[in-house]
């Protein structure tokens, strides 16, 4: 069964450093997402991406964040200068074409735990 994969599973970084979190969405999906979950808090939407551009973003997704689909398979989240409060589990998700039943389901990866020291 196709699945979303994420690497690394755990990333430890120093405050102020740049990190790139990587995701491989399901191959025929068109919509890609990043969410995060700070320990003990809700899963929060960060950004959605379609047709090589951001389609929606939250207030959390400020200038320190960026997303990219550098090739036909990867989808990355970059944090330019990490802060202590960026420590969280980051989930990537993807979904199929809208207008189909599969388009309403977002498939999630296992997450990357980011620890900022």
């Amino acid at each position: 069964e196709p699945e979303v994969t994420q690497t690394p599973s755990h990333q430890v970084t120093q405050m102020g450093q740049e990190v790139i979190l990587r995701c491989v969405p399901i191959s025929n999906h068109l919509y890609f997402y990043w969410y995060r979950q700070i320990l003990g808090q809700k899963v929060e939407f960060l950004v959605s991406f379609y047709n090589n551009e951001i389609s929606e973003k939250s207030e959390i997704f400020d200038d320190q964040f960026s997303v990219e689909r550098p090739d036909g398979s990867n989808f990355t989240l970059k944090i330019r200068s990490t802060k202590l409060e960026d420590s969280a589990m980051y989930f990537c998700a993807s979904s199929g074409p809208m207008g189909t039943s599969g388009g309403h389901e977002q498939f999630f990866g296992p997450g990357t735990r980011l620890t900022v020291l």
Partner: protein
Amino acid sequence: AQSVTQLDSQVPVFEEAPVELRCNYSSSVSVYLFWYVQYPNQGLQLLLKYLSGSTLVESINGFEAEFNKSQTSFHLRTPSVHIRDTAEYFCAVRSGMGAQKLVFGQGTRLTINP
């Protein structure tokens, strides 16, 4: 804007007992509703969804949820839980008006005691 409230952060139950996990949402537009489950050390998996039609939706592993528009609720229940159901359960809502983001509740940790 949508919001989701899961009233119980933790629910301990005995094996084979019935259980209901509560979810209420607020939205000014039509919505799609979802329950996701997160087993230990795994990602989020879709358990069931309400898009339209019958207000009672079922999963393949014995869970069901009922969309109640008047009470803005989408409670998840099963008549008999099993040890394998130990997980965190998240209710989520998505606007039916084009926005794609999911808005999640805080999650309910279901703990099954033998």
